[in-house]
């Protein structure tokens, strides 16, 4: 093992951290629930399902990402509202989280079953996807992540003030002539696409999207400004994941590198428990 970590790997870790942080902030503000995150809304499950489809059908990840972007766009933006749209807008957020967690569990069970069967027949299986890491990152992944980063960042930069007011409340933003419904759809779509891109190329980092926004809000200036949270948060989140991944690389355990995603599965689950047990948590439907 080299003592020097690759630059593409570092960059991918940065972008993945930035995307997960942004996805967490966007899902929490759009559903007005501090427990909302890609991991609790079933988006992780959707991404893993995508990886399995890519693997079994031999489809390149990029095409699947395009297909998923199109599908998500259709779900949220068509006038003829689909059932998935109604689920997201018609039921309370705690129920959405329960549905999301259940969906993740279902995908996890399917994943384990397929893994068992493939191993029994001595066939290849993308086992490492469940715990994200940046060991096998390639140039296509970096290119897609860079492109998505600039697209997402240009949206945030353009709409920073609107997002700030939207964070105060849907109706409140509406009163200031801001189309809350449109902003909500846009940021939910962006959160889904960014998170799925991370899963397709780097794997699952469970609960990182939940953990990072809460850690950021411990910084006083960020806790008072959603605009700063979405502008600075991705950079801090990216640097954080880059640091954790570098530590995993530099300090292997018995010669084996611990996937960063495995660390966050443990830390994130603890964070979710702490949040649930925290008495003064406000959940708004």
């Amino acid at each position, binding site marked *: 093992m080299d003592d020097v970590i690759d630059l593409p790997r570092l960059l991918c870790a940065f972008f993945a951290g930035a995307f997960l942080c942004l996805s967490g902030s966007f899902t929490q503000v759009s559903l007005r629930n501090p427990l909302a995150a890609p991991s609790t809304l079933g988006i992780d499950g959707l991404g893993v399902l995508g990886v399995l489809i890519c693997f079994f059908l031999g489809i390149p990840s990029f095409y699947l990402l395009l297909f998923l972007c199109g599908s998500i766009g259709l779900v949220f933006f068509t006038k003829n509202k689909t059932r998935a749209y109604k689920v997201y807008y018609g039921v309370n957020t705690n129920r959405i989280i329960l549905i999301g967690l259940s969906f993740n569990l279902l995908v996890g069970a399917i994943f384990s079953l397929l893994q068992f069967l493939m191993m029994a027949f001595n066939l290849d299986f993308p086992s490492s996807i469940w715990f994200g890491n940046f060991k096998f990152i390639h140039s296509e992944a970096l290119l897609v992540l860079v492109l998505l980063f600039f697209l997402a960042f240009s949206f945030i930069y353009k709409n920073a003030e609107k997002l700030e007011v939207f964070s*105060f409340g849907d109706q409140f933003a509406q009163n200031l002539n801001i189309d809350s419904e449109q902003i909500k759809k846009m940021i939910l779509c962006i959160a889904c696409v960014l998170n799925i891109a991370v899963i397709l190329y780097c794997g699952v980092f469970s609960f990182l999207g939940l953990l990072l926004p809460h850690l950021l809000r411990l910084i006083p200036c960020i806790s008072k400004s959603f605009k700063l949270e979405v502008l600075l948060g991705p950079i801090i989140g990216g640097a954080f994941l880059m640091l954790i991944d570098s530590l995993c690389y530099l300090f292997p355990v018995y010669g084996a590198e611990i996937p960063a995603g495995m660390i966050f599965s443990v830390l994130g689950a603890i964070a979710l428990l702490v949040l649930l047990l925290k008495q003064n948590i406000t959940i708004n439907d």
Partner: protein
Amino acid sequence: MKIQTANEFFIKDISFKFDLNLKDSFYLIHGENGSGKSSFLRLLQQNSKTYFMGKKVYLLDQKRLSPLGAHTLDDLLKKLKKFEYKQSPLFKDFYLRIKDYADIEITKLSGGQNQMVKICLMLFIGADYYFLDEPFQYLDKNNSVFLEQIIEKLTSENNFGLLVEHRKFDCNHRLNSLFVEKSLNHIEVCNG
């Protein structure tokens, strides 16, 4: 115009006429629970995209104000100065009344305090027309009396407004009535 939920229509094919030239054009909306009074207000605002008949509308809804993060009323007022606002002359009096908790995190306020903060923000942003959906909810007797005076001043400013309220509303100004009936799917506007 129609309001639709996943399974049923609340209000369908309705027509109504408001006389905006009346001096007291505040309408008190009546109707049984679930008849669609609040939905009616939202429909009017959503269809007009903040401007109703060319005038700026402010809809005070029933939901608790819950900004993400540790914002206080003072923080919000500071941030709102970047946006288009037309502060009502009633704002300063209202702000002085709630000054004690203007620097406390909004998420930590009680239901009544939160409602007062919402009304304060409404008066800061200001509008030509006010749509108030149960503005007295959670308020104690003193604050209710104070808010009644504020609404009375709003009506005397010749503003058009719609008010959903169940309790007996003592207002010296004449309030027109508007009935929303679920079974008949219609809205009736009565003057006086």
